[in-house]
Structure formats: structure tokens, C-alpha cells
């Protein structure tokens, strides 16, 4: 039997039992659509997180106190004991390194800001002018922190947009004095809204010179040192040299962790990819179920068409021809189901993107390909058994079924 004839015969056979065919196509479609939508969600989460990290700034190398076992990013760093503090001098020393463009120390504490009667909790970030360059923060009014000696205590502050709104309302903020903890500082600038970043919302932060923050909280320990490499290809050099220098400064003890934004990104990327894959795996179970359904449907088809099989054999059909005809039917159900599921899944992902515009819910290519491939292989695999049963049927017995 010619290939085109087998396909046509199988198509007519499938069309001959519309409800049964429709239901198995639907099962297959739901399986594929589930994979497409769920991986779109997972990968959307990954893209979202990666996007948030990228907004931290480019070519960023971050130094944090404490040693991590792997040398890579490790969330446990946050709670490990710090053997030796990171200081302003450590940060200043890094400026001499060739691959380093900018350095900004970062000191973080919690305090209150008040003006007139209004009082509000605020995160106080002690840093320098270069911090704003590294993080690409833009000023809405006024100017950034002065580019002065890091150890000078200058009573000025740059405030986030939300602080400005809540503490000053409609009043102009720049030039005004505010009370910050036990200090009186003058507001010299207001940041443009930066939106939700990872960790802290910079709209709710009060930036002050690092020395002021340190004297306010009576501590010299830096939270982070942000280092900007001269270029993307210098990130690794910068990381290595930063580590070497700090080790030398800390008496040969490697008690800091240097992470690159790439490493952080890679970790989250890996994590969320694994999550997406796991979700895809769970969704793939529905594909296996759909495959079993196709098998059931084909077994019913073989039983229903027993007489027809006998007739085909009487008219010279070989076992192989009958096997191919039934296999083609199972394959068609799977192909149509997989394709319909693909369209359905893409539609679902599209609606997700419409409903949550910040969330880039695009299914990854690998998931789409894997879903389609799994649908087709399970459909075919589960089609084999019924097709063999049909081919092996005894023609005399089969013909008696009319």
C-alpha cells in the first residue's frame, strides 16, 4: 500500500468516529498546552528575575564580608560570622587596581527621618557619589552626594522618591533640613523613581555620605563594596585582583566573598531553569496519560473494526499494511493533538502576558520542542500495541464479526 494511501485511509478511519477521535485529540492537546503554559510561567519568572538583576548595573563586582565555601554566590553568606570588617580603606584601596573603574562603599542601617511633625522609618544607606553612577540612578531634583574625602562627615542627604512624597508632600525638599536619627541633615537631591529593585526599594532609602552613616551608627563595618570593572571582559580580572588585594590587606586571610553579577545571575538562572524543567516534567505526565488514552482509543478502534480488518486481509492486505494503517491513525491523532495543544498553549501564554504585562511569559523553545516530541513519541509508542494486535488478527475469526 502506498504511503499517501495509508495516510488517507487512516484519516478517513479517524474521521469516521468523530467523537472518539476528538476526545483523544483533546487529551493530547491539553497535555501539550499544559507543558507550554507552565514552562512559559517558569521561564517568565526566570526572565523577570534576570531582568531585575540586570537593572543593578553593568559590569558589577560585589564584595561582601565573610567567606563562602564555594567562592560562588551563597545565600548562607548573609548569616556567616564576619571575621574581619570591610572598611572604607579597603574600598579606597580597590580604586588603585587597573581593571577597576569605580568603587562605592555601602553602609546600611535603619533609622527614622522626620521633618516638622512627620516621621517615617527609613533605610539609611551610607555611600559615595560613584554609587549613583554604578547603579545608574538618576536625579530628579538637586544633585547627588558630594565627591569628597570618604572619611569626612558631611550632613547632607539624597532621598528616594517615596520618602520625599511622604515626608515633604507637595513642599520642595531640596535645601530643606531634616532630622535623621539624631542628626540634622540637609536634603540636596531627590532620586527619580527606580521602582522595585531586588532587596530594597530604593525609593524608600535615604542616601548619606558613608562617614556620616558610620558615625550615626557608630560602626565602620561596610555592608558591601560595589566595584565596577572597566569592561565586560575585565570582570574576571577585577574579581581576582580585588580578592588578592583584600586578602593581602586582611593579613593573608581570605575572609571576604567577591561575587560578580554574572555569577549571581547564573545561579538564579540555573535555579529557575531547573524549576521550569521540573514543572515541564510534571506537565509531561499528562502527556503520558494522553498517550495511554490514545492506546485505549486505538484498542477500541481495533475491536470495533475487527470485521474490517478481516475484510482487508481477505483482499490481500499484509500484516504490515494493517499495522501501518492503525499506527498512522494513532500518529495522526497525536500530531493533530500536539499541534492544537501548541496553539492552545501559546494562546494561554499570550493571555498571561496580557494579564500581567511585567511578566514575560514566553514558553522556551526547548519546552515546546520537547512537548511536541513527547506527544508524538507517546502517541506512536502507545499506538504500536493496538496496531500489532490488529495485524495479528486471524482473518477467519475477524470476518465472522460482521
Amino acid at each position: 500500500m502506498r504511503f499517501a494511501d495509508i495516510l488517507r485511509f487512516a484519516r478517513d478511519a479517524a474521521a469516521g468516529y468523530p467523537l472518539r477521535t476528538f476526545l483523544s485529540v483533546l487529551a493530547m492537546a491539553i497535555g501539550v498546552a499544559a507543558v507550554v503554559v507552565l514552562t512559559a510561567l517558569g521561564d517568565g519568572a526566570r526572565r523577570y528575575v534576570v531582568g531585575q538583576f540586570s537593572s543593578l548595573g553593568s559590569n558589577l563586582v560585589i564584595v561582601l564580608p565573610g567567606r563562602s565555601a564555594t567562592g560562588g554566590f551563597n545565600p548562607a553568606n548573609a548569616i556567616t560570622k564576619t571575621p574581619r570588617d570591610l572598611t572604607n580603606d579597603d574600598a579606597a584601596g580597590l580604586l588603585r587596581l587597573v581593571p577597576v573603574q569605580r568603587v562605592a562603599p555601602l553602609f546600611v542601617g535603619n533609622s527614622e527621618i522626620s521633618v516638622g511633625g512627620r516621621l517615617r522609618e527609613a533605610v539609611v544607606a551610607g555611600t559615595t557619589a560613584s554609587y549613583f553612577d554604578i547603579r545608574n540612578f538618576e536625579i530628579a531634583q538637586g544633585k547627588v552626594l558630594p565627591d569628597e574625602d570618604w572619611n569626612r562627615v558631611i550632613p547632607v542627604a539624597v532621598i528616594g522618591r517615596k520618602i520625599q512624597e511622604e515626608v515633604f508632600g507637595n513642599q520642595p525638599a531640596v535645601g530643606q533640613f531634616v532630622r535623621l536619627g539624631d542628626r540634622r541633615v540637609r536634603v540636596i537631591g531627590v532620586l527619580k523613581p527606580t521602582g522595585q529593585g531586588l532587596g530594597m526599594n530604593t525609593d524608600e532609602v535615604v542616601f548619606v555620605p558613608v562617614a556620616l552613616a558610620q558615625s550615626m551608627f557608630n560602626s565602620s563595618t561596610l555592608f558591601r563594596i560595589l566595584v565596577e570593572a572597566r569592561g565586560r571582559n575585565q570582570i574576571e580580572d577585577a574579581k581576582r585582583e580585588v580578592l588578592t588585594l583584600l586578602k593581602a590587606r586582611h593579613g593573608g586571610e581570605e575572609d571576604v566573598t567577591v561575587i560578580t553579577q554574572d555569577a549571581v545571575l547564573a545561579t538564579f538562572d540555573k535555579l529557575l531553569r531547573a524549576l521550569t524543567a521540573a514543572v515541564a516534567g510534571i506537565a509531561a505526565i499528562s502527556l503520558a496519560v494522553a498517550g495511554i488514552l490514545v492506546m485505549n482509543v486505538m484498542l477500541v478502534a481495533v475491536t470495533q473494526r475487527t470485521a474490517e480488518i478481516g475484510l482487508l486481509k481477505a483482499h490481500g492486505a499484509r500484516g504490515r499494511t494493517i499495522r501501518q494503517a492503525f499506527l498512522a491513525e494513532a500518529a495522526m491523532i497525536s500530531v493533530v493533538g500536539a499541534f492544537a495543544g501548541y496553539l492552545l498553549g501559546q494562546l494561554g501564554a499570550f493571555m498571561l502576558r496580557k494579564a500581567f504585562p511585567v511578566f514575560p511569559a514566553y514558553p522556551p523553545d526547548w519546552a515546546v520542542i520537547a512537548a511536541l516530541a513527547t506527544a508524538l513519541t507517546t502517541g506512536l509508542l502507545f499506538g504500536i500495541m493496538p496496531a500489532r494486535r490488529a495485524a495479528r488478527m486471524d482473518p477467519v475469526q475477524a470476518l465472522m464479526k460482521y
Partner: protein
Amino acid sequence: MALIELCGVERVFHLGDSTVNALARIDVSIDSGEYVAIMGPSGSGKSTLLNLLGLLDRPDAGTYRLEGRDVTTLSPDEQAAVRSRRIGFVFQSFHLVPRLTAAENIALPMMLAGIAASERTRRVDQALKDFGLNQRADHRPDQLSGGQRQRVAIARATIMQPAVLLADEPTGNLDRTTGDEVIHLLETLNAGGVTLIIVTHDPKLGVRARRQLVMEDGALKHDSARLPDAPVG
């Protein structure tokens, strides 16, 4: 050389502990172009014999030569090829594929044999004309009368120009007139050279054949070719 030669053919069915000798040492030889009626009471083994002749079943003992070739030892695929080219089947209940049109049903054996679509169309058109089915080409079996269905089935059985046409009670589901028409059609085909073997309960149809085989309990009780004077029936 005989077209069909059965030599000591036996067929035994096992039903639990009991065995049924559906065919017991059948020796028969049928020449090309013959018109043979197989008769006998129900359960005497007529259908079993016909299925063997059509290579749908294998004997438990004995040999079957078709056109001089021992076909009992052929592989299933080789037997399928013989069925495709040399044997045509006509059944009591027509056995048309319900979802296919008359034309598609007739074309089925050619499609199974891998004949090109253009050639199929040509031969189906001719067959539709020959069997008076021009107006019914696109009708499905449930839109056809019994006689028309059997004519489609006969057209299908002969579309590959077989040497033998095997018909198991071809008029069993038809009224007298339509049955006669169908028999007449089969006889015309026989006149054209096809060997015709019909299983029938109907003595009136049996006597129309030039040769009668009468079965009883799986044995060949009577062969009009061997005993030309013996009564029929």
C-alpha cells in the same frame, strides 16, 4: 493442469476437550474456468473449505496446490500476495466498509496492492459501468440497496482480475429476484473465464452450477464430476 488441487486436506478445531473434524481428508481438483457449487447441511464444513481455498486458513494436514504451486507452505505475506492477485471473495453480508463510498470500496483491493491512483480511477470507472453502478459511485453502503451492495462487493472482488471467485452464500441476504440477478452476474463473470465457487444452501442455485460438491460432517460426500449419474442435493 488443475487450477485447484486439494490432497488429503484436514482441518481440526479444538474446543476445550472436544475436537471437531471440520474437514476430513478432502481430495478434490478443480479446473480453471469451472463453475462449482458447494452444498450440504449446516455445520458440514462448507465455509471452512472455502476459507482454506481462499488462503484465509491453513489445513492441519494435506496439501493445497493453486496453479501448480503448493500454497500451504507460503509465508503469511506470500499468501496475502496470492489473495491479492489470484483470489476474489464475495460474502453473504457484503462486508463493505461503511465509511467508504461504493467507488472507494471497489478500489480497496487495488489500494492495498499499491496500484497508482490514476489506474485505480480508470478501472473503478470501468467496473462501475460494467456492474451498472454509474449513478452510485459516491454513495455509501447504507445508501445502497442489498442488490447494489452485493454488486459493489462483486466488483471489488473482481477488480484485481482474480483466477478464482469464492462466494459464501452470496444471495443469503437477498430476496429471490435480487439473488437471481446476483447469481446471473456471477455466472456472466464465470463465462468470461473466472473460476467460480459458490457455497449455497439453495438446491435451485446448486443445480445451476456445472458441478456440485456435497459435504457432510466435513467429508466430501458427493462430487458430480466423479459420479455423473448420482442425484444432486
